[in-house]
């Protein structure tokens, strides 16, 4: 059935406030001012998402410049020094200023609505967290003009996103680019910790009446586990940025190998943050899938308790796998065995999740609207990413492929194939709630198919040069290696994805003004955010809701057959 012809259930009309929004009148200056001083979780959520989409375009352009450089062997499109800056800025931006803010943005917007609360537990802390993260992003990019490089000109960090010591020490990275990198990550880390505290306090302390722990929708549940990971994993990053600053500004010796400091310790500290960070990013993608797949399969999620347990399980296991990033640095055989086994253990809870999604789709009345298309592609691609993950967890295999394009292909399969795809699904699914307008379905399909084709051209192909021995982070290669055609296919796929993302941006802008009216509940969904008007009023719920099951809107629409009778 078409999305906009979906009838809203008469039951939910009672909870919707139709009084006009007074905030919409006023001059443009007042409008801008109201967005800057806002503490409303929905506005901050939208600010996070817009901020992240802006950086997605910037970091995407950086990726495309990298791909242009690698299109031909011995290409001199950019210099080796610029190339180093490009992949450093691409990685840092994508992780810290695209992934984190867009996921926190959706969390900010959705968590209070889904648990029937009127705002986050600490609205002002929320605003602080957003603005300090945004400041961190601007600081990173200010290094292009403010960070004095070797030649005395503007520059940018060029130490790769994991910034291995001792390259980052004063002796090897003079100028201020590494300082901008470190301070920027320090600032955004503080913002992330603030938001994580806020989300945990919101979910546990602001639930509406009747919402017991096992009636919380899966999205808030997964945001709690992801926030816990932020607390215990982003804090070590903050600590080691502080150590790096002590080294660079106060002449400390933490990572100064000439005074006995250890480069190895930085690698450990960074990956103690770096690996759980992957799960910080992927957990919200799971959360979106948990909400979208049931609605478009017209079935309740399969195995809710197993989903919660698997999420918490992933969070704990992910804290003990970091050294699988360091197999080639060298460890005892006991260390190799431990980190191989603990990494393989992650596949058990993630397998539980995959089977639960399949079981939810199985036998459902499936609607292939754009959010569902992205979700199906996500399940498929996430499984493949997991399979190469198991290959890389085997330390002898890892010794052969480490720091090759095989690894680059593997983690982009997770970050793009799983996380970015679910972010696009979430944008298509919740855009009507945030703006009151539907996204154009035809453009959405174009966006999806171009994205799928571009993604598989790029990242399926990228495994092969890795297996042929092409290392990551090289700025060019010899023509007789046989990598040329493969690299050209990868680059073409990259540009197709670029076009797909431009279509999304056009769709978002165009539909904001010309899209079909969404109404409160365009997808005939079951969680509380769809019981408010689109967009919801500042106070969310005129009457605080009371719930009796995991799908309160189902109960409301089907009083003769409520979920509460079965849970």
């Amino acid at each position: 059935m078409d999305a906009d012809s979906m009838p809203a259930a008469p039951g939910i009309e009672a909870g919707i406030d139709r009084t006009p929004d007074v905030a919409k009148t006023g001059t443009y200056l007042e409008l801008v001012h109201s967005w800057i001083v806002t503490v409303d979780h929905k506005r901050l959520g939208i600010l996070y998402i817009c901020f992240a989409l802006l950086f997605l375009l910037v970091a995407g352009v950086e990726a495309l410049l990298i791909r242009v450089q690698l299109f031909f062997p011995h290409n001199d499109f950019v210099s080796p020094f610029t190339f180093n800056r490009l992949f450093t800025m691409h990685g840092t931006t994508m992780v810290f200023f695209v992934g984190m803010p867009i996921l926190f943005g959706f969390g900010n917007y959705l968590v209070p609505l889904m648990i029937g609360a009127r705002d986050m537990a600490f609205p002002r802390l929320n605003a602080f967290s957003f603005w300090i993260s945004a400041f961190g992003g601007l600081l990173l990019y200010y290094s292009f003009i403010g960070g004095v490089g070797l030649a005395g000109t503007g520059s940018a960090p060029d130490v790769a996103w994991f910034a291995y010591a001792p390259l980052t020490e004063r002796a090897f990275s003079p100028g201020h680019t590494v300082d901008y990198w470190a301070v920027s990550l320090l600032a955004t880390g503080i913002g992330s910790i603030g938001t994580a505290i806020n989300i945990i306090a919101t979910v546990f302390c602001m639930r509406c009446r009747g919402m017991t722990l096992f009636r919380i929708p899966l999205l808030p549940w997964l945001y709690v586990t992801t926030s816990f990971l932020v607390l215990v994993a982003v804090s070590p990053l903050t600590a080691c940025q502080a150590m790096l600053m002590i080294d660079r500004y106060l002449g400390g010796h933490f990572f100064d190998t000439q005074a006995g400091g250890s480069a190895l310790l930085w690698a450990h500290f960074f990956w103690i943050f770096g690996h759980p960070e992957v799960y910080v990013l992927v957990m919200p993608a799971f959360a979106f899938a948990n909400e979208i797949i049931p609605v478009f399969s017209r079935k309740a999620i399969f195995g809710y308790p197993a989903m919660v347990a698997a999420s918490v399980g992933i969070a704990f296991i992910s804290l003990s796998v970091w050294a699988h990033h360091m197999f080639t640095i060298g460890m005892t055989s006991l260390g190799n065995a431990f980190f191989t086994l603990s990494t393989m253990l992650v596949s058990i809870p993630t397998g539980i999740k995959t089977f639960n999604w399949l079981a939810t789709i199985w036998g459902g009345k499936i609607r292939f609207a754009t959010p569902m298309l992205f979700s199906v592609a996500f399940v498929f691609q996430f499984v493949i990413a997991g399979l190469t993950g198991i290959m890389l967890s085997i330390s002898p295999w890892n010794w052969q492929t480490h720091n090759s394009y095989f690894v680059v292909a593997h983690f982009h399969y997770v970050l793009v194939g799983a996380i970015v795809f679910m972010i696009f699904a979430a944008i298509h699914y919740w855009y009507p709630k945030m703006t009151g307008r539907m996204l154009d379905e035809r453009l959405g399909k174009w966006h999806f198919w171009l994205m799928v084709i571009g993604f598989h051209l790029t990242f399926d192909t990228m495994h092969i040069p890795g297996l042929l021995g092409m290392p990551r982070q090289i700025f060019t290669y010899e023509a007789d290696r046989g990598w040329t055609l493969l690299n050209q296919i990868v680059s073409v796929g990259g540009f197709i994805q670029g076009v797909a993302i431009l279509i999304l941006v056009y769709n978002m802008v165009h539909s904001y003004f010309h899209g079909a009216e969404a109404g409160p509940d365009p997808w005939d969904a079951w969680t509380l955010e769809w019981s408010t008007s689109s967009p919801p009023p500042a106070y969310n719920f005129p009457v605080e809701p009371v719930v009796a099951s995991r799908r309160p809107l189902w109960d409301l629409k089907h009083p003769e057959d409520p979920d509460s009778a079965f849970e």
Partner: protein
Amino acid sequence: MATVPLQHMTKEDTWKLPSRGVMAMACLITAEASIFTIFVVAYLYYLGRDVSGPTPKAVLEIPYFGTVCLLSSSGFIMLAERAIEHGRMAAFRLWWMVTILLGAIFLTDTGLEWYKLIVHDHLTIHTNLFGTTFYSLVGLHASHVVVGLLMMLVVLVFALTGHLHGEHAARVKVLALYWHFVDAVWVVVFTVVYVVGR
């Protein structure tokens, strides 16, 4: 506007949720504990790896007095918590001031220790690995003491100007939770720096 609740009412009449202040402080303590863990691991990892002196054994003296002051302040802040819970504001002000005083004595003690290390033993953060890790770890803890003292001083100003009453007990207890954490961390730092590391 209809005022019917969204869902049929449940039988549960009492709907109790945990305090968000305590929950948020517990989360902050989790995050802070992770930061301290990294600094403690760095301290232990670099023990005895210096390429030049001075060594911990040669220059460190156990700060008995400051430690006793800081740890006992946890007891006094508990007395203050109990006092404000029962609305005994005079007792609260007394125990609160004692807590701040003990914290300040600890900080002075650390300051004197650092003065001795810098001026007499010529150990700075730049000297060697011991200097780097020592000043970072102890300094990180001391900065938490400073933050705690500043927040307690704000509460003291409210208490002395009569703006603080028994109904604020829950908020004061959240701050006290932070102070207990700062004290507990000192037990770890003390053990690592002055017992294991010396």
